[in-house]
């Protein structure tokens, strides 16, 4: 079977600097890969290449064996690649419900309908509300997105991703800036998605406890290159990883 997402020699250069350099990597359904690396390692750039916001200088991206390197972000979203952004990236003046419904509606392909029936509408709204309940945002559904506190905006970011109903979930530091009360909601959600073995999950995350709790596999990026890739125990124990990523030496039990 083809991997759900595969990159071959993926490279992007900005001027002379290769932000992502020669990354070949395959991700399979039922697997949660955490991508780690220091700031500027190219994690978000790698995501941008996979979800189509950036075009690679070299290399190819395949989804289920099909070359999607030249396709637009909207085509990739429709094909099932879903992405939540690191910096909150919403529709600020639209309500929380409208934000989410837009993603539902894109998934169902009802965007172009000019004169739609009211029935189709309530159906889309119901579905959007389900995703909002899952992210505990149902109480604020009618507020404009811009009026939400930061933590709730981050949750809405995740609600949009859920509403896209993708096969491939890409989370870019989903719990960054969230309070200790809010983060578990998102982690439980990711845990739930993980139960569905047909989904592929990519997660950029800094918090070691999160990494350890969720990761089936860890990929380490450093200066744009993939320097380690494998099961969590092996990768965490590698000296190069401890050196570049963790910076300071860690205790024995943590490395184990």
């Amino acid at each position: 079977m083809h991997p759900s997402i595969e990159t071959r020699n993926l490279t992007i250069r900005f001027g002379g600097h290769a932000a992502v350099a020669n990354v070949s990597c395959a991700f399979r359904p039922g697997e949660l890969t955490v991508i780690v690396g220091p700031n500027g390692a190219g994690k978000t750039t790698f995501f941008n290449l996979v979800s189509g916001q950036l075009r690679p200088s070299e290399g190819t991206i395949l989804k289920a064996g099909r070359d999607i390197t030249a396709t637009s972000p909207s085509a990739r979203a429709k094909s099932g690649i879903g992405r939540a952004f690191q910096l909150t990236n919403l529709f600020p003046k639209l309500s929380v419900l409208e934000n989410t419904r837009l993603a539902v509606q894109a998934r169902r392909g009802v965007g172009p309908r000019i004169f739609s029936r009211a029935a189709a509408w309530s159906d889309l709204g119901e579905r959007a509300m389900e995703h909002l309940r899952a992210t505990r945002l149902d109480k604020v559904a009618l507020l404009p997105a811009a009026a939400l506190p930061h933590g709730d905006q981050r949750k809405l970011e995740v609600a949009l991703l859920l509403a896209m109903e993708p096969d491939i979930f890409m989370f870019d530091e989903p719990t960054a800036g969230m309070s200790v009360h809010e983060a578990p909601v998102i982690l439980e959600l990711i845990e739930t998605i993980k139960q569905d073995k047909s989904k592929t999950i990519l997660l950029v995350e800094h918090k070691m406890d999160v990494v350890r709790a969720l990761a089936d596999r860890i990929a380490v990026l450093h200066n744009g290159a993939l320097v380690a890739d494998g099961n969590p125990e092996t990768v965490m124990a590698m000296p190069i990883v401890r050196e570049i990523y963790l910076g300071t030496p860690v205790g024995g039990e943590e490395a184990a």
Partner: protein
Amino acid sequence: MTDTSATSHRAAKRFNTGRIAVYAIVAAIGLALMFAPFLFPDVRSQQVAARICIFIALVASYDLLIGYTGIVSFAHTMFFGLGAYGTAIALKQMGPGWDAVFLGGSAGVAAAIILAIAIGLLSLRVKAIFFAMVTLAAASVMMVLASQLSDFTGGEDGLVYSAPKLFSPATKLMTGDDGKVLAVFDVRMNGKIAAYYFVFLSSLALFFAMLRIVASPLGTVLEAIRENELRAEAIGYRVVAYRTAIFVIAAVIAALAGILWATWLKYTGPDTTLSFAIMIDILLMVVIGGMGTMHGAVIGVTVMSLAQFYLKDLMEAGAIATADIPVLPHLLEPDRWLLWLGVLFILLVYFFPAGIAGTLMKKAGE
């Protein structure tokens, strides 16, 4: 159930004062326009009322672009002019008849669609400022063409023609026992009434169609594109396709409004359709009414048109009334009406920064 909180909140939203005020103003304007021939029977008032009807459709269609989708175009009068000139040329060449209105109008709409698709696909991918320049260039070319192809378009003088017979003042819609035109509430039921209601009902239909569009799933996608284009693309919307689609829809509505205008005026020239002065009027009307609200178009067009047509009269009356007081009559000299229109505009923008409808609704939302 799922929607209970949503419904109750929506109900609360519906019953706030700002919204009620906006709906009340719009309803009052609608009623006044509906009964305009009876309320304001003089010729000039009819002219103002018809212009308000047609411009509501025209300005609302422009708001689909600038207010809902965030597309800045200066070619809206070009599409308006295509509809008007198509109708005018056909009426001139084929003589007054519905076939001419239909054929000429269709040709104008078809030209608007083709041009809108071409401009949209070629340039909606680029930055907003560049797109605005392209529309400006296209509109200028159209103006030059209209004045140069004078055999066809009448050049700078424009075209004078007759409208279909139904709209002629000699047509008797209702006759009394004596065979003369019947008067209802002292208003004669002649072709002028038919022409007004043709304009009124057609504009109303266009306005309701646009209300449906902005309330449809498409309407929300347009707002999403305005709010965050990259994210709209990232959740699966082809932004260029949506932009082109709404650009074409707005162009078609503008061309249809142009057909109404040409049929009503029985004259079409650069100054009544294509000129940049009209483009600026449209922009001001959108801004005064409130961008991104269909109701704003109704309010903006009405305020602006009434000011343009009646401020001078009002000032004249004021100047006469204050004749004995020093300075004031000079300030109210009717020739200074443009100065006061400017002052009025500045005051409106100052006190209603999001437009009249936009600011009222926003205040209510807080």
